[in-house]
Each structure stands twice: as C-alpha cells, then as structure tokens.
C-alpha cells in the first residue's frame, strides 16, 4: 500500500515537473484554435457543422467570395461580365492557378464542380447551382448560364473541388458523400495536413494559394483542437494552451475580459432565437385562439425580451423585432413603431379583452370569445438549446400574467421538427441563422413549406407573391423593396415573438496574435465567419506583414506545465499559477522524503506488533 502511494506520488511529481523541452519552434508559427464542436465528416458534400465549414472555406476557393462588408469580390475569378439579358456570366480565372498538389486549376474544374453538383444535388452546392450550367470556353474562361433570372449572380460562392480527385468518387449523389476527403488537395490558403477525430484537425499553409504571392503566411499551421466541455476550453485559453477559443459561454466573459492578455469578441452573424408560434394554417390540432393574429400580437407584447437578453445572455444578445433575411443587414427593414411589440403586459391584456377573450369563470385563465375552451397552450422546450428550459419557465410566467395557461413539454430539436410539421403544439423555442442571399431565409415562411421548413404553420398569399417576385428580380433596388415588404408582412403576423439576435462569443490571446478581422465588419465574429477572411491576415504580435521566426528575447522559455501553444515568438508563456519548476522540484523532494520517513517508521512499528 505505502509503496504504491510512494510510487504514485513520485510518478505524479515527475510527470508534473519533467516537462519535455519544447521543440516546437523550428521557425514555424502555429495557431491553436479550441472549439467544443466535433467533426462528423470532412466531406463538403455530406457535412453541415460549423467546424466542418471552417475547414472547407480554408481548403477550397470559389469563383467569388465576400469581403468584410459582404460585397462580392474576386476569388478564383479575377473578373466577370454579364450578357445583355443578365442570364449568362463569363468569368475569367486568375493566371497561373494551381491546386496545392501542383496540378493546374482550370475552367474545367469550375465547370465540373458546378455541373456535377447540380446534377447530383450535393447538399451544400445545390441551393446555388440547381439552375446553373457551366461551359468551358478556354483554360481560363468559364461561362455560367442560369435557366431562370438569378439576382445572386455574379456571386457564385460554391467551393470549387479538384476534378482530378473528385471525379472518380463522385459517381452519383450518394456515393460522393462516402468519400473521407483526407487528401488535403485544395486551392485555398490552408489545406488539411492531419485529422484525428475528436481531437485535432491540422491545416498547413498552401504555398500555391494565389493570395500568398509576394508575401509569407503569418501562420504556418492552424490546429483546431476539440474540447469535451466549455469550461476546459476557457481554462485552456487562460493558461495559454490554446490561442483562440470559439463559442465561449456568456458566463465566462467577465473573467476573460479581466485578463489583459485576452481579447473578447462578441460577434453577430444575424442569427437569432425566437419563440415560434403555430398560426394554424397547417395540419394538427392547434388551439383555435392561436389562429387569431390578435392573440399572437398580445403574446408578443407579454414577452419580456429584454429580460432574456439580460438574464440569459448576460447582456450580450440584442432584442430584435423582425427576422433578418440575410447576414447582410441592408435586407432587414426598419420596423415601424406600430409593429414593434415591445414588452407591455397591460397592452397585451387590453388586446385580449377587446378581442373578446375573457375569463368568464374566474379561474384566472381566459376562454374563447363567448365562453368556450380555456386558453391552455402547449409550449415545447427545445432541449438542444442552452436557453430552452429557462425561456420555457419564464414564458409560463409571462403568459400567466395575461391569463394564458402554458404547459411545458421537453423535446430535442429533431422531435420538435416532427411536432411542428404535425402541428400539434402552440409555441416552442428555436432559432435560425440566415445565409447571404435573402431567398433561402424567406422561403421558410411560404405556404409550400408547411409540413417541411415552415416552422410556424403560417401562410400568406401576399407574402408568397413577394417572395416569388424577389427571387427573380435582377434590379437590386426593386428587390430590396420587395424583401423589406415581405419581411414586414411576416412581422405583422407575429409568428415569431421574443426574438433576440444571439452572438457568437469568441476570445483570443491578444498578447500573441493580431490581424483578426470581423465579418460583417461592423459586429461580426473574427473566426467561423462567412468567408474566413481573418486567416490570411493573422500574424504573431509585432510581425509586420509576415511572420518573424526569430524574435528578441528567450523564445524557448517554458515554465511549468505547458508544452503547447509555444507559438508566438517572443511571447514567453504564462505559467499556470506562477509556480516555477524549481518550486515544484523542491516540493517534490520534501514530499518524497516525508513519505519515506513515514513508511520506514510504520514498517518498524509493524515488526513490533
């Protein structure tokens, strides 16, 4: 027993102190990005997680991309011109493009990706390429024709895959999803080097990327490291084990902001969370009161959205009063005062009184006009949402204040999706993140999507007409007008209430790194944003333009504990709690000696017994 204890103690102390000498530098800079999401697949025709998108936008370029202001800018294509009817666009590729394996990147790769993805309906490409046909004119010229007027053009943001790698595996739309995609051949700034599922994904700078011409990458390697829980992620950032933490919990903000070496980013990408309603235009057995817009508006007035912002989001979220059709906020209309359903329970009660929903039997719950079913609603708590349970509890109280009784039911988001399609609910909580073009967000609320993506069972002919019109409207000013109008119709329907725009909270070691860019420029996140615009710009602090591999001072400083994140030259790491190896060594000696004394004493005692 005692020998075991001694052995363990010595082992522990040896492990804690005998830190291998870091051999990290070797003139390379490494950025370690911690995240809590895993990777399910690295195949861009199969996956959809945020962690996976980040790898794809680093490894693959598109014809066009988007800058910090979300404007369409050249990527693989350096220029483009439209035909007179606006249906055909001709793109000229940059000169001398090559894949990371040295194979030339030509119009052939572009046309193959666009045509094959349309034909095989690859799930991340199809939304853009469904109506497109690409034709190779010459090695550097590709012509893209849309079967219908497409206001998104010339923006074609789909990732172009290397034909020489993908043609053999893309035999059909199903087969292509089985490819593991570990080849690391791409055209973007970084390509895959190594993948360890549930642990790390390492990407190295692609020397053939067009953007590196005339300059050196500020970061040679980017390592994405998965953590099993958020607390460990935050702790690793503070200790310097990682350089960047994606998805920091709101509760950690104050703590991180107090650290002068850490910069906290509260980034918005127009995504929001809402309490969704059932307007009753679909199947199911919705409470008849829900089909009355007055009731939904009254409920909207009764929800204290600001309390959600302050109490659940630590003040980082924002109350909003309509959906955002796009990441680009110019598509979100100004909401007139009469459609802003700000917290006002008195007004909510007044609306219900006037509409005839009165509590005739005095049990505190209103009944249908003329006395009938009491207003008893089912609210589904989405268990995949961190805030779901808390919002549910608050919602019960807010509704109680206006004479509506709410019963809570907990379901995960897949089950909730089924319940919404069946129409067997009154309210629930969930959220959306829009894409760049407003059409896909707006399409959620059309009549045809009831039973599928329409998660409020609401249907309006006027809205549908505007949606169809804007989808093919090539004049931008007219389209903007149509999208604004459609959004206002939806807002008036009060199908989404208690809406908050929610942030992606990120944090990084500002003592080591600089050059992070927000996208959208005003308030977006710096990584895991739309086009990954930060990566080519990130560099160690003080390394102007390119990385310096040697820096003044001691670059091999390794205080206790930590062998990772030895990445920023000239930035000696913080030691965990200011305990130096010498102190630990001394402590170890004392403890071992003490144990030895005790052991020998007990031994002699045993003999005597």
């Amino acid at each position, binding site marked *: 027993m005692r020998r075991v204890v001694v052995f363990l103690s010595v082992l522990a102390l040896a492990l804690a102190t005998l830190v291998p000498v870091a051999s990290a530098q070797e003139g390379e800079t490494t950025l370690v990005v911690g995240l809590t999401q*895993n990777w399910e697949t690295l195949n861009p025709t199969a996956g959809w997680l945020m962690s996976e998108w980040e790898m794809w936008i680093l490894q693959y370029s598109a014809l066009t991309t988007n800058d910090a202001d979300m404007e369409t800018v050249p990527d693989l294509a350096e220029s483009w011109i439209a035909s007179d009817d606006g249906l055909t666009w001709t793109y000229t590729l940059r000169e001398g493009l090559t894949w990371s394996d040295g194979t030339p990147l030509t119009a052939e790769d572009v046309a193959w990706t666009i045509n094959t993805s349309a034909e095989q309906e690859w799930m991340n490409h199809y939304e853009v390429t469904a109506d497109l046909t690409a034709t190779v004119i010459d090695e550097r010229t590709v012509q893209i024709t849309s079967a219908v007027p497409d206001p998104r053009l010339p923006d074609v943001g789909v990732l172009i895959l290397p034909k020489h790698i993908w043609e053999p595996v893309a035999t059909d*739309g199903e087969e292509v999803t089985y490819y593991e995609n570990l080849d690391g051949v791409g055209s973007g700034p970084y390509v895959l080097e190594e993948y360890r599922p549930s642990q790390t994904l390492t990407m190295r700078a692609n020397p053939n990327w067009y953007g590196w011409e005339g300059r050196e990458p500020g970061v040679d390697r980017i390592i994405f490291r998965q953590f099993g829980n958020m607390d*460990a992620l935050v702790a690793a950032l503070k200790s310097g084990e990682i350089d960047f933490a994606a998805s920091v919990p709101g509760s950690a903000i104050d703590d991180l902001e107090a650290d002068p070496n850490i910069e906290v980013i509260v980034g918005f990408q127009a995504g929001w969370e809402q309490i969704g309603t059932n307007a009753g235009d679909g199947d199911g057995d919705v409470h008849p009161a829900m089909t009355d817009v007055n009731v939904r508006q009254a409920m909207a007035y009764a929800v204290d959205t600001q309390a959600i912002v302050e109490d659940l989001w630590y003040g980082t979220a924002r109350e909003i009063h309509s959906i955002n059709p796009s990441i680009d906020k110019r598509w979100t209309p100004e909401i007139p005062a009469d459609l802003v359903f700000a917290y006002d329970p008195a007004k909510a009660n007044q609306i219900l009184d006037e509409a005839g929903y009165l509590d005739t039997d005095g049990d505190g719950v209103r009944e249908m006009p003329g006395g009938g079913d009491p207003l008893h609603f089912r609210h589904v708590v989405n268990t995949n949402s961190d805030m779901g349970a808390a919002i549910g509890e608050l919602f019960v109280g807010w509704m109680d204040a206006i004479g509506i009784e709410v019963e809570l039911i907990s379901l995960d988001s897949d089950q909730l999706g*089924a319940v919404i399609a069946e129409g067997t609910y009154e309210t629930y909580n969930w959220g959306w993140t829009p894409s760049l073009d407003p059409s896909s967000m707006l399409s959620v609320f059309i009549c045809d999507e009831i039973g599928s993506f329409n998660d409020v069972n609401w249907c309006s002919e006027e809205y549908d007409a505007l949606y169809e019109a804007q989808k093919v409207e090539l004049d931008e000013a007219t389209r903007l007008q149509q999208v604004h109008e459609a959004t206002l119709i939806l807002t008036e329907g009060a199908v989404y209430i208690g809406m908050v725009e929610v942030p992606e909270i990120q944090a990084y070691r500002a003592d080591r790194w600089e050059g992070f860019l927000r996208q959208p420029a005003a308030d977006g996140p710096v990584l895991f944003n739309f086009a990954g615009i930060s990566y080519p710009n990130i560099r160690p602090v003080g390394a102007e333009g390119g990385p310096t591999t040697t820096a003044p001072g001691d670059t091999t400083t390794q205080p206790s504990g930590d062998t990772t994140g030895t990445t920023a030259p000239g930035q000696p790491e913080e030691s965990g709690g200011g305990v130096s190896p010498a102190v630990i060594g001394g402590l170890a000696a004392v403890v071992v000696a003490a144990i030895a004394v005790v052991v020998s004493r007990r031994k002699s005692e045993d003999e005597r017994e």
Partner: protein
Amino acid sequence: MGSALTLLFVVCFNFFLFRIVPSDPLAHMLRGRNISREVQDNLRAAFGLDQPITTQFVYYLRETFRGNLGISFHSRQPVWDEIVERIPATVELLGVSWLFAAVIGTAGGVIAGWRRNTWKDRLITSSTMTLYSVPDFWLGIILLTVFSVVLGWFPIGGMQSVGVRLQGFEAFLDHLRHLFLPALTLSLAYMGEYTMVTRSSLVEVMSEDYLTVARAKGLRDKVVRNHHALPNALLPVVTLAALNLGFILSGAIAVESVFSWPGLGQATAEAIRGPDYPMLQGLFLLFSASVILFNLIADLLYMYLDPRVEAS
C-alpha cells in the same frame, strides 16, 4: 450458452431501444439545406429508412451476424472502423484506472479489515467511500481545476500536446502527463468498491477457525494475514476485478468528456446527438458483449480458484 442467449437478446433490444423515441435521423443530416424530395428519398433508401421497421430489423439482424455494423449516419464511414479507431484510447485510460483502483483499493481493504475499528480502518473506509459516492465527472472537474488550471501542472485535457512535435521518450512522457488526471479520477472513484469488498470478506475470514489455529501455531501476524487469511478473502475481489474488466470498453462518457479524451465514451456522447443509430447500436453491442464475456470469464475463474464452487 446463457451468455450467447444474453448477447442475442442485447442485439435485438439495441435495435428497438434507439427507435422508441420518434426522431428522424435524416432531418438531422439535412438540417437547413434545400434538398429536393427526390434526393431525400434516395438518402432515406440508402440508409434503409424508407423500409418498414420490421424489414429494417431483419436487415439489421442479418448484417450484424455477418459482422457488418453498418455505415455511420454522421461520418458516412463503416461503424466498425470508427469504433476500432477509438478502442486504444479507451482501453488505455480505463485499463490503467482499473489496475490502480483494484490494487490500491484492495490494499486499503486489507489494512482496514485487518485493523478493524482502528483509526486506520475509519480513515480508509470513510475516504474511499466518500470518493466512491461523489460523481466521477465532478471529481474530474475538481482535479482538472486544481491541478491544471490553478497549479498548471498538467495539461487541460486531450491525449497529447498539440503544436509540438515530440518523439520517442518525450512523446511517451507527454502522453503520460495527459493520461494522469483522467486515470487518477477514475481510479479514485472506483477504489471504494474494492476496499469495501476486500474489507468485509477479510473480516468474515478472520472469524474462521483455521485462522485461530494459525495464530495458535505462533505464526507472526503478517504471515497469518498474507498466507492464511488473504488467499480465501481475495476470492470475491478477483471476481469483482474480472467483472469490472468487462466495463473497460464501455469507456467513461462523463470523464472522457471532462478531459476531452477521444475514446469510446466521447464517441457515444457524439453519436447520441443526431442520433447516429448505427453507431449507437455498434457501440452498445460492443459494450454488452464485453460485459457478458467478462462475466463468463469471472465465473470460470472463480471455479478454477475455488474448488468448493465446482463441487457444489
């Protein structure tokens, strides 16, 4: 024979267990994507989700007996490959913890039992029972906070340092540093079981006549303990250890998550989000099979070690 039947039951049970909750895996796979009904139907067909549940079941049974656990909904790779990839990490962590828990726990039990009702007994019994009672993930978080965050002695999770290239002995040391805290957590958490079984078994043996005889012969206390009492007292401990070995593959879902340890436990946690039916079925089949197998081994071992069992 009994073991084989149990396994068959598990195979069938697993299939229905994950389908009790109505949930559409395809909805998860396609979330937020605009995909034509035709492609959705093709995908459904590819994963057999368009068939009635009985057909799916027959197909599942047939393929399972052929050793084909199916394709993971998440990674689109064979489930067996996904599982095999994770086995070493879990066996390493759980194996080391199992060994330390058994050795230290038993040693503690011997001291506590032999010196019954002394301060040693009370100290050992109360401390191991306390550790046994606290949730293992909570213990893990405490150890992680103290040793990694506050003291900075150990890394915050993972299996090896990232961003550095270590080789040979250095890589091994680095690996041990990552293993230490999760293994310590699990060892501490499961020591109590061994301590209590050893202690009570030893106390029982101590009242036997043959021990009185041994003492009467004038044998030293230590000899009586090690050569007369322990061989009999440790029988239930051996069984316990063999049984627990069966749980080595099941991983430790919570502790692996706390320490970001990429084993089968974490794979289970990831597969539950989704849900990834084939992966969950494969994992649970493996877990059950290993428990059943080690139960069998424990039975056989007991027969071999204790002739009385065979006779009866």
